[in-house]
């Protein structure tokens, strides 16, 4: 650490000594508090209170949650959709990222760099481009393309059709999942200490999967943790971005998750129930993240 502190220094002197650092972090801290910490507290508080526009608060226990689940199965459906999208886009996207990051490692360095940048770029454009192909209901560009190549019976308003909506969301989600998590995994593979892998090769281990599992993955835990955090955050929000960009209304959207419920139901639900839905969303995300952190923490200690 840059400045060594002598023992026995009081908290006050320590703080005064580092005043410059605190001032530097201040803009971030203010915005972080206003736009992340306070909304979090508001979510938790409001989901247990009933709130009316006159400013009156009243503790209502789990009433808000009850009203969520009693609205005709709509919220439970959204909840299941969110989990399903997480299992496919979140987990599947992670596996894809990992496989791509690993596979690229076998190519020569220049080609590997080009492919890394290409995947990152292409996935940045993914959601907007899939929204273009899917927007416009029955007259969407995808429909006219299918008509053009002779598949005239596969005509649908894809995002508003129960048969296709989830599939579209999943494909578009997988397409644009090579973001920062992918970059971090590539970084991880790049800086791996090859000593263990090389000695395994010398001893005659030829199976690359064996080397990956025993010699490489243990060095990648921090990257895996970061990439999974990115994937969790992404899997729960991306379908909503696709919905908005393609102009599908929340009622029509057949692959809506919890976030769709929050965005679309502001008219029917009171603020308390919206916050309760938000609370559930954040709780589910945090629970998954906590499990991932716990497992990775255990694994990295056992190495």
């Amino acid at each position, binding site marked *: 650490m840059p400045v060594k502190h002598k023992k026995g220094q009081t908290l006050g002197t320590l703080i005064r000594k580092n005043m410059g650092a605190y001032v530097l972090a201040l803009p*971030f801290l203010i915005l972080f508090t206003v736009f*992340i910490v306070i909304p979090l507290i*508001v979510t938790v508080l409001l989901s247990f209170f009933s709130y009316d526009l006159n400013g009156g608060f009243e503790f209502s226990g789990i009433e808000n949650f009850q009203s969520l689940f009693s609205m005709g199965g709509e919220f439970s459906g959204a909840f299941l959709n969110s989990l399903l999208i997480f299992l496919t886009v979140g987990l599947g996207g992670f596996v894809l990222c990992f496989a791509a990051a690993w596979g690229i490692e076998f190519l020569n360095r220049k080609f590997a760099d080009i492919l890394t940048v290409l995947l990152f770029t292409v996935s940045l454009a993914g959601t907007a481009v899939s929204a273009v192909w899917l927007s*416009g209901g029955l007259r969407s560009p995808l429909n006219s393309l299918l008509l053009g190549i002779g598949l005239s019976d596969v005509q649908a308003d894809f995002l508003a059709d129960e048969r296709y909506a989830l599939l579209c969301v999943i494909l578009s989600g997988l397409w644009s999942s090579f973001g*920062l998590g992918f970059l971090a995994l590539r970084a991880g593979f790049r800086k791996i200490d090859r000593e263990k892998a090389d000695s395994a090769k010398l001893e005659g281990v030829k199976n690359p999967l064996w080397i990956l599992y025993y010699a490489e993955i243990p060095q990648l835990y921090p990257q895996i943790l970061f990439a999974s955090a990115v994937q969790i955050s992404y899997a729960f929000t991306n379908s909503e971005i696709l919905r908005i960009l*393609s*102009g599908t209304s929340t009622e029509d959207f057949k692959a809506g998750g919890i976030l769709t419920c929050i965005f679309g139901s502001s008219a029917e639900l009171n603020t308390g129930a919206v916050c309760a839905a938000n609370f559930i969303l954040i709780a589910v995300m945090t629970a998954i*993240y906590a499990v991932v952190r716990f497992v990775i923490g255990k694994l990295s200690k056992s190495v």
Partner: protein
Amino acid sequence: MDIKKKRLIFRCVKIAVIVLVSVMMIGMLAPIYFVIIRSFSPAEELFPLKVFPSKLSVSNFADLFVGTGALGIPYSRNLFSSLIITLATVILQIPIICAAAYVLSKVKAPGIRTFNKIIEWTLILSPLTLYAPQYLLMLKIGISDSLFAMILPFIVSPIAVYLVRQYMNLIPDEIVYSARIDGASHFRIVFGIIMPMAKPALCAIAIMTTGFMWSFSGELFVSSGDIKPLGAFMPIFASDDGTVGVLCALCAVIIVPVIILSIVFRKEIAQTASFAGLKETEK
């Protein structure tokens, strides 16, 4: 014989991976190619879908931004709005994130450890997941339905600050230490020494933010048509056969700048990928 067999299997796996990646690349590149090529196609070239149109024109872009053709109204004002929110977010974000990441990574002072823990736990929160309470809050402080509502919530991203912090962890502490001994302030160290060194990570963050903001539709954040960013208008053009060209032009406007940025900063992206070894924090 056995070794030969194994080598063969290994080679097969290698080829399979290459084939898989190329199929994926084609699957992802083709839709982008068609959107861009169609944005330059005049109306008569749009149907049926052509891989190489015989004529190219910029009429779709003219329709969109000058207001010629069927639209009648120009969307240049919304282009301006998109430009403002993207530039403002990136320009404010880079120094703020950089300074915070420096404090998180290189300063040992009371409270910084807690700060680090909080960032690690809030990694999964993106602005959209907190939309509902944020909206209530912005309504209270009176910035809803303004450009600020589309800028301020997107500046602080835990993921961005975490990535930059991890990158900075790789910069030797001795650099900061010796600068401190020479009497440099934290402010000078961050913006004079550390920021240029962390350029690759900052570039990746900037491109990510640009990609998000430039395609941002502003739905629910703003309701006035004048300040809505470009992303808000994609659904409108999609519902009519006559505006498919304009839709593709709009989508091209949305994706091409990001693609160009990634190509310009390809070295930095590859560098983030080669050095951003996110080592475990011992703090």
